[in-house]
């Protein structure tokens, strides 16, 4: 997954919209009045002034029309951003014209949910490029889109504002906000649930000693004990403590808007928890009642996969999903994993989960901060 998603937008502009400003309306009014009074009195001075105002209006209309023509737009954004962090969008404007520059353009980037950023470009010469970085803030997690990029200009005199609209197709995934959580309360109870298993592999907790067998990694030889015993002894590592965690997210039973808010809090907490475990070199996976989960793994790539899952997950609206969670839990218990259940409900007893599964609820989340 890369930072820059290359989504170039060519100038697919639909319509050059415009409107008069106050100054423009006043100018028009003055011109009309001047025309009437000049016709009335025949005073040549008034004709001179009238010539001036008409000239200004003419220049304004010609230059204004030219100003926004021949401009192409490219918008590059990151694929993903955390909720609350600004999304940096890189906008490049290219002028196809050969002769005249464009002046004083407002570049307005619009995302859905009313996110907007404005930049000002003083001048773009012919056959040149202008690059500007805009920050858009999204306040809800999930999939968002950038809708439009508008170019707006009132050049030259501010009488008439013209606008050129470029529809965009960039989509941005907004991850839930990840904040530091302490996982030590969970680590303590880690070994309790599941039987320890031996393994030749990566567990780094001391498990047992056994005799050296040809083929064992000589790095595992415990020299001190071997010296005492007189034979070579290797250390066998095992999964003393479980370094695999599955975060089970309760995605059902969201009926009211308050439920939805609590669900969001729960998702962010779950994501933060997952990140914390990952940084402590645990294998982390996810599961949920309705949505399929992600199998546990570790590393930064897994972090992205998890964040994406947390970003996209939406609660199911139906009421009868409660038992799905319990089913999922039962399936998971067969695996050598530690399960942490995060739920938004105020009363976790509704879930009817087995006693031994600890459920983290919003109330506790609030206490944790």
């Amino acid at each position, binding site marked *: 997954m*890369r930072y*820059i998603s290359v989504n170039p937008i060519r100038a697919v502009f639909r319509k050059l919209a415009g409107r008069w400003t106050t100054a423009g309306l006043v100018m028009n009014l003055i011109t009309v009045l001047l025309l009437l009074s000049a016709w009335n009195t025949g005073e040549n001075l008034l004709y001179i002034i009238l010539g001036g105002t008409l000239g200004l209006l003419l220049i304004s209309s010609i230059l204004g029309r030219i100003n926004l023509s021949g401009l192409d737009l490219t918008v590059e954004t*990151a694929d993903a*951003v*955390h909720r609350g962090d*600004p999304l940096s969008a890189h906008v490049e404007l290219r002028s196809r014209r050969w002769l005249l520059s464009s002046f004083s353009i407002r570049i307005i980037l619009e995302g859905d949910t009313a996110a907007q950023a404005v930049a000002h470009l003083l001048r773009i010469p012919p056959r040149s490029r202008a690059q500007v970085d805009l920050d858009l803030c999204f306040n809800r997690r999930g999939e968002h889109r950038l809708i439009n990029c508008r170019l707006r200009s009132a050049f030259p005199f501010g009488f008439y504002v013209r606008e050129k609209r470029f529809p965009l197709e960039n989509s941005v995934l907004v991850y839930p906000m990840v904040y530091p959580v302490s996982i030590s309360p969970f680590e303590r109870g880690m070994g309790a649930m599941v039987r320890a298993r031996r393994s030749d592999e990566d567990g780094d907790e001391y498990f047992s000693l056994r005799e050296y067998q040809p083929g064992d990694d000589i*790095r595992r030889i415990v020299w001190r004990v071997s010296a005492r015993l007189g034979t070579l002894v290797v250390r066998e590592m095992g999964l003393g403590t479980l370094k695999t965690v599955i975060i089970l997210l309760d995605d059902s039973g969201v009926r009211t808007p308050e439920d939805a808010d609590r669900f969001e809090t729960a998702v962010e907490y779950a994501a933060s928890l997952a990140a914390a475990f990952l940084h402590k070199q645990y294998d982390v996976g996810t599961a949920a009642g309705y949505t399929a989960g992600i199998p546990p793994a570790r*590393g930064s790539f897994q972090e992205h996969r998890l964040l994406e899952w947390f970003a996209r997950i939406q609660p199911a609206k139906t009421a009868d999903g409660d038992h799905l969670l319990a089913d999922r839990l039962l399936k998971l218990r067969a695996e050598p994993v530690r399960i942490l259940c995060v739920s938004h409900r105020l009363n976790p007893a509704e879930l009817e989960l087995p006693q031994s599964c600890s459920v983290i609820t919003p109330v506790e989340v609030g206490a944790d901060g």
Partner: protein
Amino acid sequence: MAVMQKEQHTTSLIRRLIETIERVVYGKRDVVERCVIALLARGHLLIEDVPGIGKTTLAQSLARSVDCSFSRIQFTSDMLPSDILGVSVLNPKTGAFDFRKGPIFAGIVLADEINRTPPKTQSALLEAMSEGTVTVDGVTYTLPKPFMVIATQNPIEQEGTYTLPESQLDRFLMRVEMGYPPEQDELLIMRRHDPSAVLASLEPALTVQELLDLQWQASEVRVDPTVERYILAIVRATRTHSSVRLGASPRGTQGLFEASQARALLQGRDFVTPSDVKDMAVNVLGHRVLVRGRSADLTASARERNRVIEDILRDVPVPD
């Protein structure tokens, strides 16, 4: 007069060092200079770049040029700290435990692909770097002097990597990118028959004592109070910039200070000018700031950080 002679001597030494390295490393004058600056400033270097670019060659030629011992550690994901630091081995004859020194006990250590190994191993290396000593089984062993770690990270691969956390990056004085060589030089590289032979034939340009002397001289380079304020202003500006989540620490200030001194010495001066500071700022401070927003790719995040530093350099007034 004596001062001038000494200066000329210093300059010629450094020139000789650089030329020696360049006999093997083509077309990388900038990076070589920065390596030498890091060496003179007694700092460690982090090179981020794609494989095959000559990082190993650079480190090796540097080591040979200063007549230091060289060791290369290739990091893998199942490495243990003992693989780096060393392990106590039972000597059956004496019945005691001998400490076999790990590859870290060398003058110049090349830590290749440091982001492939789990944090436990990473921290073993990094602590040794910062403390200058290694403690195994309760016994403390000092690392040789001079001691310099050149670590590399591969910015492209993502699977199964453990990105070096920003707080640990602080321990590196500088971060550089090597980049592809220019066309002429790549042509020369292509035609080179036996690179290892050239490396083997490299004569050291400096003795260890001369190197230590140069390092001492670098620390004695004069810094005008105005330039000190400039350095401080830059570092403090990294803490208040709008795009920055966390700015550089006082270690960064110190790093910039020492690196500017070393660069001044490289240029043949015995005083630091603002140009030195400006030149070193991106390399020294770039990896020490945390910017807002998420970037999954090392290259992109580096680009973002460098842009912030350049912004700051433009805004902070330069002392006249």
